[in-house]
């Protein structure tokens, strides 16, 4: 439990840090109200069209591939924690696991899914 206590203090310190910064700036900042302050900042120029633009679908491919390898990390984690106990056989088994997944990555590469079009 005591290990996690540090994380709790870290979270509290993070909250305090941002709260103090925002609160202080709220207290001491000069006040001037005009509608230009609420506009979206884009290199100092007025924005053209709505700022909530639609994303390119290409991003979604990356997101999907990311999720696959995100799940892979999940299986790497327990192996990495008890790496020394599992020994050489654990290493071999993990490499088989990674190899199967790299096949998928190789296929993605071959199909040009990683190229930006």
């Amino acid at each position, binding site marked *: *439990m005591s290990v*996690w*206590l540090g*994380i*709790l203090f870290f*979270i509290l310190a993070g909250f305090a840090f941002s709260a103090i910064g925002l609160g202080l700036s709220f207290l001491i900042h000069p006040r001037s109200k005009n509608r230009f302050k609420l506009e979206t900042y884009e290199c100092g120029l007025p924005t053209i069209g*709505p700022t*909530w633009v*639609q*994303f390119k*679908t290409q*991003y*979604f*491919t990356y*997101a*999907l*591939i*990311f*999720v*696959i390898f*995100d*799940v*892979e*990390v*999940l*299986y790497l*984690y*327990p*192996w990495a*924690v*008890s790496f020394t*106990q*599992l020994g050489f*056989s*654990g290493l071999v*088994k*993990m490499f*088989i*696991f*990674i190899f*199967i*997944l790299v*096949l*998928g*990555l190789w*296929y*993605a590469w071959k*199909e040009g*899914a990683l190229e930006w079009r």
Partner: protein
Amino acid sequence: MKQLQGCADMENSLELIAFFLLAGSLLTGALMVVTLKNLVNSVLSLIVVFFSLAGIFILLNADFLAAVQVLVYAGGVCIMLVFGVMLVQRKDMRESNPVNRRFLIAAPLTGALFLLIGLVAAKSPWVKEAGEVPENTIEHLAPILLRDYVIPFEAVAILLTVALTGVLLLVKEVKDNGRSS
């Protein structure tokens, strides 16, 4: 002995504080998910919900589950949701999650469901003295995964690869259709 007791008390009260902080941020985040007008902001508060849930898992000594929660839910699922929302957005994103009159039906229904679950939870005989919960679950998990269940473990890799190739095939088909039309 008395000192030990005091130490345990302090730990318990700290756990209680942590639980209330986490439960508070979880409920606030969940409320923001349903009430915020912008769907992207809703997804961002969903990430807060998932992180708080991971904290509650840590309080229950389920550290691997917490890692799963952060990696898969806060990382993977929320990124999918953000992209899903931004790809299929409606005209104005600021009005993409409007409140409508259906909450008048939904609120009593969910309230009744909550009452039912609460009743069942209050009536069921909980096992209060389970065995000792290990401090770290991951160290016990790794030998099970990599020694006793190696074949299912490698099958997971095959399953993930199949999912990846399926994704690529689907994306390719969508792209080809887009080009021809």
